[in-house]
């Protein structure tokens, strides 16, 4: 940078004018950088640090409070799902794999069920598919609520966390009633669902929608309406669309950059082509946009849920499976839109009782790999704003 900014004008270098027309300020800053350069400090953030909401470590080289480089060190939550899946029955994988992104279990197990069904050529009953959609969208809201709470918390506002969990508990009650679980629901099965909806579950779900809508409005005024929040997030951590694509970053990060890429829209699965919804996008790709997109996605999910209520037909929710599940040899790929972004499963089968290879392409892994790009040159305080806005779950990074 310094090379092309030659001082022009008087020989003594009194009047500074950069070659590209930038003002004196830049040059003074550069001189200050050169002359007042301080020793770099390496700071080890994590693996257990409040900022990383989980166990992620970031090696940061600091110049004062400015980050010179940041290198995420991952693997602290590597639980070897991919190896364990090779040792488990196709039906057992569901209970194992729904734990990688631990706040969106239905969305995870849905993908697993779909990839096995695709490989075996199983048609899922219509009712089961609609119910899967309903549950997947509620899970998406549960996941997003988690981040609606945790992101302001990282920026120092404590209260949204408590409000978000109040809402989560209400939805949790519905999920618990339907599936019997609170976090790892294990509701999807290969070929359908574990059980039908209990009577009245749809009514409860109907009641929840308008209440949630009100609460989302409350969040918008509480969080987006807060000038400090805006000052901390606007223009910070900008991820342009082409860089996001090149990293394979998806979900809120990609949509905030203005790319309306959502597997539910571009490559619809289940019955997402039969419901109306929009893909919210941002303009600048900064932290503020990512958070706005997050709220927007919640609103769209509510829209989908409302339409699903009217569409669930009567009928069976599961098909009869053979005693031993043995998909034919070959490979299958399923792409779904998990709450955090694009979640794909790639399965190679050798016509055995267990899969030969089970690759999980998790959204957080690719999203977090953008950290070195995003953090370079930001302030240490902005590191938190940036890391929090790339919504990730540590288990989803490390698998």
């Amino acid at each position, binding site marked *: 940078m310094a090379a092309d900014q030659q001082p022009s004008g008087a020989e003594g270098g009194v009047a500074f004018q950069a070659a590209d027309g930038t003002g004196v300020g830049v040059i003074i800053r550069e001189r200050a950088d050169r002359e007042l350069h301080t020793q770099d400090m390496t700071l080890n953030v994590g693996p257990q640090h409040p900022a990383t909401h989980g166990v992620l470590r970031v090696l940061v080289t600091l110049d004062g409070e400015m980050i010179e480089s940041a290198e995420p060190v991952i693997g602290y939550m590597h639980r070897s799902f991919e190896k364990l899946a090779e040792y488990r029955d196709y039906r057992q994988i569901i209970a194992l794999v729904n734990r990688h992104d631990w706040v969106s279990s239905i969305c995870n197990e849905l993908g697993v069920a779909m990839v096995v069904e695709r490989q075996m050529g199983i048609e899922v009953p219509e009712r089961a598919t609609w119910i899967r959609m309903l549950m997947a969208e509620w899970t998406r809201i549960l996941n997003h609520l988690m981040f609606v709470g945790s992101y302001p918390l990282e920026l120092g*506002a404590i209260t949204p966390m408590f409000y978000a969990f109040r809402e989560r508990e209400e939805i949790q009650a519905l999920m618990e009633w339907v599936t019997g679980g609170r976090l790892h629901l294990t509701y999807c099965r290969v070929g359908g669902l574990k059980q039908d909806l209990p009577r009245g579950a749809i009514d409860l779900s109907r009641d929840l929608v308008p209440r949630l809508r009100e609460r989302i409005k409350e969040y918008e005024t509480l969080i987006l309406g*807060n000038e400090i929040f805006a000052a901390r997030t606007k223009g910070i951590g900008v991820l342009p669309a082409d860089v996001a694509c090149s990293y394979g970053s998806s979900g809120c990060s990609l949509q905030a950059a203005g790319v309306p890429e959502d597997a539910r829209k571009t490559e619809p699965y289940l019955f997402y082509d039969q419901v109306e919804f929009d893909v919210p996008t941002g303009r600048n790709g900064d932290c503020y946009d990512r958070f706005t997109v997050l709220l927007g996605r919640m609103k769209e999910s509510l829209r989908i849920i409302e339409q699903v209520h009217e569409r669930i037909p009567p009928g069976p929710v599961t098909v009869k499976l053979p005693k031993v599940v043995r998909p034919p040899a070959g490979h299958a790929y399923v792409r779904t839109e998990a709450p955090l972004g694009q979640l794909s499963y790639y399965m190679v089968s050798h016509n055995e009782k267990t899969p030969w290879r089970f690759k999980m392409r998790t959204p957080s892994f690719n999203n977090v790999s953008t950290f070195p790009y995003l953090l370079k040159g930001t302030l240490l305080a902005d590191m938190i704003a940036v890391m929090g806005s790339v919504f990730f779950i540590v288990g989803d990074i490390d698998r």
Partner: protein
Amino acid sequence: MSDLLSNYWVLMPVKVVAVLLIFLVFPLVVGYMEHKVMAHMQARLGPMEAGRFHGVLQLVADGVKFVQKESVVPRAADKWVFTLAPAVALIPVILVFGFIPYGPELTPIRSDVGLFVTLALSSVSVIGVLMAAWSSANKYSLIGGLRAAAQLIAYELPLVLAAAAVAMQAGSADLAVIVEQQRFWGWAGWALLPLTVGFFVYGTAALAELTRPPFDMPLADSEVVFGYLTEYTGLRFAFFLLTEYAGIVSQSAIAATLFLGGYKGVILPDGPWFLAVKVLALSFLVIWARSTYPRLREDQLQVIAWVRLVPVSLLLIFVVGLLKVV
């Protein structure tokens, strides 16, 4: 009776005990209030079990617990500085309580420059913070401490300028005289408007001096763990906590004295009870801010101090001076 009380050797211990009592009781009340107020703002209940009735003894339990904790001094720490830091931070705050007028003729230590002594004392805490930050031999502590130092020094200026405007208005830097000149709800008449602005300047600066949200960058738990407190355990940590809450009380008391008519009140005779109510009300605002705002970044923080508050407070002095002359 009055003869006895006027005897220095009787009066002095009474004053000391009274000030110490205030110092020990009020921070606990404010700490408990923080628990409860925040909880109710967040759809929770807060402590309910300790002390049977709504967890009233929560902070006492905390105190008893801290006494028993092992006190760890990190091996790499600068031992002497590390142990002294809590005291350096705490003692000035205790002394501040001695200068506050609690009622008519009820100022433990009356001084012609009481206002500036209290302000000077409350800024000594910075040294304690820096000592803690440096001696901990921890990078997070160091970053937190440097942030704290930069912030405390930046906000010292608007704080003192706003207080100076009050001193100009009152024509005295004696806190008791300043209170005497106010009505129960603060500065009356034509002095009201500029000094209301002064109150907001002072309040913002005081909030920053206390490193309370939204100015809690030095202690930002999501960035620097616990700032300069990261390495402190047990009683020493408790002293820092006490400093924080005592700081809230003392700053509220000074603000109430300077701007809100101190111990003056209505219906009942003037006295400490009015000051207590005002202190608690101001503490409530401090807590309210904590449960509402995210924290500012340090450069934004500096901008607020130097670009907004300092010019406003300079203008304030000018206006007050002008009104005084006219």
